[in-house]
């Protein structure tokens, strides 16, 4: 299957290893992976702050980048949620762009959603002998509706010890510009999340959105709680290399 990466600005600029891991997994699953370089960002920071014109101009880079793509896969439920739920209305006043937005929404998947729904692969032959807890990010789980797919992939990993995160579905306090604009409130929320993560005694916190993981990870690091923070793709690739299941 031909797959185009929508890598997201945060993975492109900060969390390269997530991009590498996702690429390797998709390749190992037989996908022909491409990276259309016109893409920048989904425009969500501007959109959520009320700047629709600004969001539209940035979002156009995605419409252009993925025009020719069959399937688009992204390591973020939030950015994919932006495309699914808001692009059609964001580009509603231009018939050409509107159609492009609908087409893009129809062919864009969050990583775990793609693996489970499209490739129907939940067992990647991975082995990960660690105590792990999972934080379901709000946009991916609530707005995009990808609730069980990440857990299906994690349950397919051998020797993993999955522990429930208390108050798992509560927001981590990231919220994009909210984290900076309402720093004190966001800090109080993320401290509660970090404390809950620490209470599980997990060695690893795994998630599907780097915004949230950067937030929780930043708090864990500041408070000297030595818990490794990983994107689902990173955990799976490491597990695949350890387990030598699907060739990765």
């Amino acid at each position: 299957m031909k797959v185009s990466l929508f890598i997201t600005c945060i993975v492109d600029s900060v969390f390269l290893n997530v991009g590498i891991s996702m690429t390797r997994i998709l390749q190992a699953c037989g996908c022909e992976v491409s990276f259309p370089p016109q893409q920048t960002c989904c425009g969500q920071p501007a959109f959520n702050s009320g700047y629709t014109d600004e969001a539209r101009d940035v979002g156009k880079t995605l419409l252009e980048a993925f025009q020719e793509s069959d399937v688009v896969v992204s390591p973020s439920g939030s950015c994919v949620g932006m495309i699914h739920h808001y692009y059609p209305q964001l580009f509603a006043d231009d018939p050409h762009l509107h159609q492009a937005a609908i087409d893009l929404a129809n062919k864009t998947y969050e990583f775990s959603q793609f693996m489970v729904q499209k490739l129907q692969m939940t067992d990647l032959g991975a082995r990960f002998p660690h105590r792990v807890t999972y934080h379901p990010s709000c946009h991916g789980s609530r707005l995009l509706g990808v609730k069980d797919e990440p857990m299906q992939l994690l349950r397919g990993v051998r020797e993993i010890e999955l522990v429930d995160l208390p108050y798992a579905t509560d927001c981590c306090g990231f919220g994009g510009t909210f984290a900076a604009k309402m720093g004190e409130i966001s800090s109080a929320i993320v401290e509660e999340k970090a404390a809950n993560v620490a209470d599980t005694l997990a060695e690893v916190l795994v998630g599907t959105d780097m915004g949230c993981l950067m937030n929780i990870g930043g708090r864990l690091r500041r408070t000297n709680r030595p818990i490794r923070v990983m994107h689902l793709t990173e955990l799976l690739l490491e597990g695949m290399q350890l387990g030598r299941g699907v060739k990765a």
Partner: protein
Amino acid sequence: MSTTHGSTNVHDRAQHALADDFLRQAVHFTTDRLRYKKQAVTGEFGNWEAWRERGRQIRQHTIANLDYYLDLFTRNLEAHGAHVHFAATADDAIHALREIATAQNAKRIVKSKSMVTEEIHVNHHLEEMGIHVVETDLGEYIVQLSGETPSHIIIPAIHKNREQIRDLFEAAGGERLTTETRDLAAFARRTLRRAYLAADIGITGCNFGIAETGSIALFTNEGNADLVMNMPKTHIVFMGMERILPTMEDLEVFAHLLPKSATGQNVITYMSVITGPRRQHEADGARDMHVIILDNGRSRQLGDPDFQAVLHCIRCGACLNVCPVYRQIGGHAYGSVYPGPIGAVLSPLLNNGEQYQDLPYASSLCGACYEACPVKIPLHDMLVRERQRFVASGRVKPAERAAFQAFRQLFGKAGRYQTTIRIARRLQFPIAHDGYIRAKIGPLAGWTMSRDFPVLPKRTFRELWPELTRKGNGRG
């Protein structure tokens, strides 16, 4: 507006709340209980999503045809002998209240819980007239004694613990009390019973007005509304104009949705439906019944595709109980009568000025409110639409506008984006340590006050991409 701190913005008020451990513990404790009870009761009940959808449909239909149903409701109320007063503004509602109170020569009034009366500050106006008002809902009574406003739509005194409540009751009654629930409730019961007997007027809110019968439906757990509306000779109902349901059958749906969503109760303890004042052959009920129907900014939302659905709200408070922001700062920090996600949406809509325009930003847009809402109001989307209107009407800070214009320029083309990252990589150099930034500089300060921020690595993914493809498939 709020009794708390008098600060003018949510940011400053939140600081106060965040420093108050009592408050936050009390809010955590109660919202946790309500959430888990709701989860249990809706799970046991079954088909919750179908009930929510039914609730949404009924509310959507009612609000879309509000003129028709309000007219029907009014005609039926009047046919049963009630007096109906339409109040376009808070002032009009207070004026109607004053006229009734003056005509009755009222000295004492008892009230059951009503957010609409909070919205228009009924107690304040009555006290100005020299009328003694007593709140009879236990939570409202506590808040009244402490000189505060409710900090939750359903649990007005959610921010108070039992020690604080005992102290308030001791001060009010001049007697020693323990912190036992039984003791505290007994004190309130003794005190409030005297108030019911002495009152000239009873004021209630209205959970639902039933259009086809002209009835008022009231939900309480303490039975206090029944005493308030039946014992004094005059009963005044305050209601928002959107609080209508077409039929008794619709009320059945909301008799499920409201208590299950609000407090996780399967059924409410007292659901009372009254239709008009006391009739000749009847033994109880007020002799006069007045219904004051308040607009106060609500009708402005009718016909607005972005915000009409806010009128679907049934004031259950479920969105407060799941909101991560409300959980940390409680209700008073919102500085508006309606706190939490619904308050952040509603307050700037009902009040056109700039007073509440920071509230839509007090949200991480996590969508928990939408998921909890029994009538599926997309509150998270409405918060964004309010921000859009502030941007469109120029009600934002110039620095913020400039930042997003720069974002548009720099992220609008891949080449400029790549250059931006390269420059940022160099600029971060002096403040980066060990792969992270802790410096509280510029817009980063809100983040770095509590969290480390990762530095930009030497390369972007797109710079790395040629290598990834050269090495080809199958290598990790």
